């Protein structure tokens, strides 16, 4: 997909190599490389088509995303474990709970993305219980964003990291960076909303460690 640009962050590699340098000979197996992936301009049921520049009616459907494969999953697969998180407007869902198919869940941590090196053993993960009782709460200041009524601007709350349990029971951490197309530097009435930019780390080995 054209609008989905993937960037390999050097951070993960750097951590891996630093670890490699310090590691002793008892472990010959190389650490699986953990990388920070950045997703830009992920549409979340937008009301503006960015390729045509024309307004469009929202579909009411979530854009489903696989953290494992770093790609969008078709809505036809909504009742599967192929996707981990979904986006529609400011609402973010996970693939777990009474109204979902997978083993997913979410919790919100406070801190810097790089600082979160593991998830606590006793960390409680919430799940999606109904269309309104979601693992990631909606509303300004309650979940991942603040809403400024003075300029109608949605800002992802800095320092809020989404801890995600994926549909398959693996773990990831996600930081939402922008809610607007091309992540504008200042609030602007002409900015196109419902295009997410976020970065994440996915741990494929099933542990809660991110390094």
């Amino acid at each position, binding site marked *: 997909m054209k609008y989905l640009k993937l960037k390999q962050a050097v951070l993960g590699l750097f951590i891996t190599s630093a670890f490699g340098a310090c590691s002793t000979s008892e472990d010959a197996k190389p650490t699986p490389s953990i990388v920070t992936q950045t997703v830009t301009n992920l549409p979340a049921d937008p009301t503006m088509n960015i390729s045509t520049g024309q307004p469009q009616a929202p579909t009411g459907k979530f854009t489903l995303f696989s953290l494992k494969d770093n790609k969008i999953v078709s809505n036809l697969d909504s009742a599967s474990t192929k996707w981990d998180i979904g986006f529609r407007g400011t609402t973010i869902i996970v693939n777990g709970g009474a109204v979902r198919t997978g083993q997913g869940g979410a919790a919100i941590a406070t801190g810097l993305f790089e600082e979160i090196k593991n998830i606590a053993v006793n960390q409680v993960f919430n799940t999606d219980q109904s269309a309104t009782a979601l693992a990631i709460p909606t*509303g300004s*200041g*309650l979940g991942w964003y603040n809403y400024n009524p003075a300029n109608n601007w949605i800002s992802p709350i*800095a320092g809020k990291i989404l801890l995600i349990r994926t549909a398959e029971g693996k773990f990831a951490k996600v930081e939402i960076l922008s809610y607007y197309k091309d992540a504008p530097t200042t609030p602007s009435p002409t900015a196109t909303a419902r295009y997410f930019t976020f970065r994440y780390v996915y741990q494929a080995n099933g542990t809660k460690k991110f390094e």
Partner: protein
Amino acid sequence: MTNKQLLFCLSLLSLTAQAQQQDTLKGKDIEEVVVTATRSEKMLSTVPMPVTIITKSQIQQMGSVRLQEVLQEQTGLTLTSSHGQGVQLQGFNPDYTLILIDGEPLIGRTAGTLELSRIAVGNIKQIEIVKGATSSLYGSEALAGVINIITENPRNQQLSFSGRYGTNQLTDLSMQASMHKAKLKGNIFLNRYSSIGYDLTPETKGKTVEPFHTYTAQTKWNYAINKKLQASFSGRYFNEYQESGFEVGSPSQWISGGGRVQDWNILPTFTYQPSTRWKLQQRLYYSSYQAQSELYTPDNQLFEATNFHQTFFRPELQSNYILSEKHIFTLGIGNTWESVTATRYEGTKYFQNLYAYAQYEWLPTQRWNIVLGGRADVHTVYGSQLSPKLAVQYEANQWLTVRGSWGRGFKAPDFRQLYLNFTNTVAGYSVFGTEEIVTMLKQLQQQNQLAEILISTEALTQLKAESSFSYNLGAKLQPSKKLQVNINFFRNDVENLIESQAVARRTNGQNIFSYRNLQSIYTQGIEVDATYQIHSTISLSVGYQYLDAKDKAIEEKIAKGEIFRRNPTTLVTTRVKAADYGGLMGRSRHTFNGKVFYQNAKGWSATFRAIYRGRQGWADRNGNLILDEDNEYMPNFCTFNASISKEFWSKKIRWQIGVDNLLGSTQPDYLPNVAGRLLWTSLHLQLFKKE
């Protein structure tokens, strides 16, 4: 403000500082009498609280016509503009300063701020500003302090007219008459003030300030029934009409109309003074405030009509008793009835507040003055309040006096916070006062309109009064007759500040807001005022305030490393450091004023005044809801005002010209009430005067 302007500001001061050396004549020794700080007439020098006086002659020399023009030039007061022009005092919003005319409160704070331009200054004798919590005498709202406008008392036979005309067709016309016949004295003041407004943003339709005209009438009468008993009556009427217009919708539609404000009050008073030691005063104050607006679409359909009507009635009895030179007592008791009927309220709402206050002044020696006081308020809605106060002054020697005061202040939840019942039909959100919210939530739940309750209804029940502890510590230095320096440190610890908060969500996704006691803040700083009599004709004064006003919870979170910010360009998140936190929005850390007053025996007088306010927090731009980035500040701002006047024909005529905002600096986005350069001229005629 550019650096150039700041430089100008500073060079002016150094210039006048150099001029200091050439003088020799002695300063003026007139003792000023104040009433606000202790509710009794006191020499300013003996009052142990921080008090500022603005005299009639200062106001005249400045050429000001409305209250906000006078107040904005005073040290420690900053003009703010939010639902009206008000002043910030010791870092508090205008809602927290009580504004009195002749000791009685002005009402009509529709959204918290009392519009200062409602008050004409033509008949003011002096303005007294008491800083620090003064709820011990005045109850609610006297949390930051009290501004008391003392109008002229009727004295002699006189008749005078004044007129001022200037830029924006700003026109001010006044008439003052006073009579004295045997036991009866009376005066009357009439004023008309109008302007065609101005437009700082010509590219948009509609003016920044729309045309308006206002009328004020004030009168005061005294009748000496006998040597011990005196009856007096004062009344005031104010009427304002202002046009308004704005564009709405798309394609845009021009909505226009206007708003009218009317307020009036009457105050009959009986004063009984059986001896020089004992004074008993009965005051009966009634006031009414009404604001109405009507707006129409281009095809003359009613777009919106609003109405707000408040009444205030208060009988009060006060007794001052001087037991001896060392012991003075003041006692008072009163009751307030208030009501509001408004478009956004269900029915008429009532308040009742019974109160009593007591004050003891102890002067053990010539050098010491100790004031101990307190007030109890019993309110029908928010419960009881006790407001103690202690103030001490010590005159160490001829040139140094030290004083300190401590007190509790409070502000009762207002009608809006308790009873507002407002739903924005366009956006779909609602705001309900705390006395309405529970019923409204139940109602909405029955109608299946509630998606979620965010805060349990038990937690929403009662709103407490906002309260503070206020500390002031200062010194008055008078190293020579010509130089006087006042220094005051202040600190206010405020809790239970009321804020609106989303408490539930509608099925349409919109929030329902109500009010809760949330914030704990502090304000602290230092204020320095210095006056120097350079010459018998020239006096120079400078004032400076350093202010820190912060939210305690945010400071705590920053200390714990729980507040972050994201760089909008790199999208990298970092922790906010304590040094990055700029405190509450809308406060300047540094404010400064410098004034030169000139007056000679030939009837010439002149003033030059500079007012500087440092940058102040404006709005959060990086989404972390706090003030922490440079682009979240409104830039610093400096204005210069000047005036010259000359008296002719044994002071029967005074002609004055002046300029406000000499450099024409404006900040349309931040300070819409600052018009550009205003040139004006005025003429004062004293037609008749008999001592």
